[in-house]
């Protein structure tokens, strides 16, 4: 369903638009002013006049959208006046520099969640509960089959899996921006200090994390590995797009696994032919979504991405909250899409 006319936010062909701020949030097409929740490719697109985003995501945005973009770095919790609106960015716990964006004008407040999660993640700021009259929430994993264990527990599984194969390499597929660094940070916390190999697409995104002071084991780009080096017992982190690609020819004997929320379902792992699935997501699970909706105290909720119909119906019928799916070009991260993981091109 479309947004009612006259509200603080409108749905325009370019995406979510706030007339009071003359700004678009995560626009799908080039616009003069873009407020960016985070630097994944389906939220931050090239060609806009100016970008407002959390300072920590600057390195990644410039890496992906071009070094020359006009970027206005902001801090979490800072209040900005943009046009007639008051705008603030709040930690979303999704990836480094990810934010929920709150807008307020004419006595009305809206919160756009962007992508978010509630589990602890040593590679980014934790989610901050924020209140607003109207909430626009994602619902990528909006089904009760999704329930996450802590990142620390999953990292321990990954470590045990890696260590169980000292005689051959292990290839862990993980989204290049966010998941790869989260796994590394969790491995560091488990005391891992041996060097981890990185595919080029992951390597490109490491500098902003190191600059932000995220503690991770030492890493080395795959391209810098000498020919004929012994790979047994080594761990390589690569994006899912590299699965079965020619670039990993040296790893044909490797055991492989994929770390993603989609791995909760056995069929999803089989479909892509991964050996092991590790269930770790940077999105909220079912209870995380419900908790966030409740904590926002919103009287009206719009649901985007993925299971928007299901979550909206549940909120209406079971939680008694006015909730509707919001139709638009909100592309849910689907298991089969590698869009969010491919290096910027």
């Amino acid at each position, binding site marked *: 369903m479309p947004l009612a006319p006259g509200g603080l936010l409108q749905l325009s062909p370019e995406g979510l638009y706030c007339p009071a701020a003359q700004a678009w949030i995560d626009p799908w097409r080039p616009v003069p002013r873009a407020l960016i929740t985070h630097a994944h490719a389906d939220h931050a697109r090239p060609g806009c006049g100016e970008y407002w985003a959390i300072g920590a995501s600057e390195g990644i945005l410039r890496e992906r959208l071009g070094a020359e973009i006009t970027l206005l770095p902001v801090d979490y919790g800072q209040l900005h006046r943009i046009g007639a609106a008051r705008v603030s960015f709040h930690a979303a716990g999704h990836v480094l520099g990810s934010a929920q964006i709150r807008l307020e004008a004419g006595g009305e407040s809206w919160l756009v969640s962007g992508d978010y999660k509630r589990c602890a993640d040593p590679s980014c700021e934790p989610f901050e509960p924020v209140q607003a009259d109207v909430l626009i929430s994602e619902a990528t994993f909006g*089904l009760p089959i999704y*329930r996450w264990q802590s990142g620390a527990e999953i990292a321990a599984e990954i470590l045990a899996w890696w260590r169980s194969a000292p005689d051959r390499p292990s290839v862990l597929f993980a989204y290049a921006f966010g998941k790869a660094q989260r796994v590394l940070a969790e491995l560091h916390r488990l005391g891992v200090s041996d060097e981890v190999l990185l595919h080029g697409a992951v390597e490109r995104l490491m500098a902003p994390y190191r600059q932000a002071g995220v503690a991770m084991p030492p890493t080395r780009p795959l391209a810098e590995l000498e020919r004929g080096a012994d790979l047994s017992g080594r761990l390589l982190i690569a994006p899912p797009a590299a699965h079965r690609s020619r670039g990993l020819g040296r790893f044909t004997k490797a055991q492989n696994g994929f770390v993603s929320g989609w791995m909760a379902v056995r*069929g999803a792992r089989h479909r892509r032919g991964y050996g092991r699935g590790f269930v770790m997501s940077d999105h909220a699970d079912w209870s995380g979504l419900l908790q966030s909706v409740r904590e926002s105290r919103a009287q009206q909720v719009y649901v985007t991405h993925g299971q928007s119909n299901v979550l909206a119906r549940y909120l209406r019928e079971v939680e008694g909250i006015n909730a509707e799916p919001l139709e638009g070009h909100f592309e849910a991260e689907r298991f089969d899409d590698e869009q969010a993981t491919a290096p910027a091109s």
Partner: protein
Amino acid sequence: MHAFASLFQQLDGTSSTSAKLEALNAYFQSVPAADAAWALALLMGKRRKRLITGRRLREICLAVTGLPEWLFEACHAQVGDSAETVALVWQQRPDRSATPNQAGTGLEQSLAQWMEQRLPALAALQGNEQAEAVQACWRCLPADQLLLVNKLLSGGFRVGVSTGLVTRAVARSAGLEEALVAHRLMGGFTPSAEAFAALTAAAGHGEDLSAKPYPFFLASPLELGQLEHTSPESWQLEWKWDGIRGQLIHRAGGCSLWSRGEELINEAFPELIALAELLPQGTALDGEVIVWHGDAEAPESFASLQRRLGRKAPSRSLQRDCPAAFVAYDLLEHQGTDLRQQPLQQRRALLEQLHQHWLQQADTASSGRLRLSATQSLQRWSELNERRDQARPQRAEGLMLKALDSPYLVGRKRGHWWKHKLEPLRLDAVLLYAQAGSGKRANLYTDYSFGLWNGEGALVTFAKAYSGLDDGEIRQLDRWIRAHTTERFGPVRAVEPLQVFELAFEGIQPSKRHKCGFAVRFPRISRWRTDKPASEADSLASARALMEQLA
């Protein structure tokens, strides 16, 4: 149970045959015989008994989680498997944080105890009592074992290992010949410690396998490059009959007819059992069960045989309308001696003698019930395809090529026997409806219905197909379907009639049950015709012409 759950995870987590073999071997060597027996039966897919329905498991789960049914349905659509959906949704129970009491939960019980006592006991309970017992059981299981237990309860246990691989693993773990284990396994395996001990006992002379059929030897799809350098004359050619493979045995214990699926099908084919009684004791024939009228030149189509399959005690009129015949192509046992190591040529000579002898005893009316599969020879390889194409008027599926000196081996061993099937029939049809698949195709539109044009410019549903596209094409088509849906009927989407696919199929028969007036056999997608507009797809008339041309 713990060991079996870990085996399941190992098998499920690799596509490497050698890794699977290693995991199986280690399992069979380390667990008690009773557990090994149950694992074997489960892995071979022989014990898929439904103890509690998926629907009931869902009810028991929702009673505690309090989630609405429609939400469960949405979950099921994403997961594609009922036992797994229950296992996942169960995590949302409100009292989850209470620490499970692991002691005395039965987790340490063996697989055999679970299969013989625990699960049947759950199934025997009713109503509330059953619900509470199942919930208590779930509460103390870790997620991976919960999935396994649900699959065992609902009869949906499956994992990617073939019977051949399991057989090989058992043989290896016991230090036996694979062929012997395969033979011992023929005709079914009832899990028990004793049965497993007998299966893995050292090979003894004079071992009594007389209650069992021989393991079937299977042909591989022809690779002409493998035999072009040989003389065509060193090969025996036969039609590849379009019936079901069978083994017809007369031994001291009586007569039996076994299907390739190792089912005893005596009751369905009394006329074949009657003919076997005229064979000398100590005979085992390999051949094809097929419907064939006494004086007809060619057998009937597979559709006629289908009327006989799975039907115990067929009526006289059915036996008259669809008389079964056994087309013999090999002799495995003669005068009580196992001939399988002898060359085909010799087995064939004995088979022909035996048939002659049988004919002298049979009355004229039943003389067509046992037939020899006619042999042919070839002079030049270049004539092979022309010869194969003559299979269609014979109502055969193609040609078999068997090396004259070939022994009769176990399972699919390449090199000795080849099958060379007819080129499939083909029609271009338009995609009309799509439905999501299940299992690893859950949440992907992979089950398609296709239509052909009728005379009035409308498309009429003609066939369904589920296979033939690669993963990339499936994802591409899935996106297209989501974006071009015109109507939804529950799980089915009607799409704009724009995409054309070439369908391949093995046969086409008139049918009253199908709206278009005929049914095709084994339809699958052979090509996505992105080059063709829907208007150029085939019509019902072209399908009818194809059918008449073959009749």
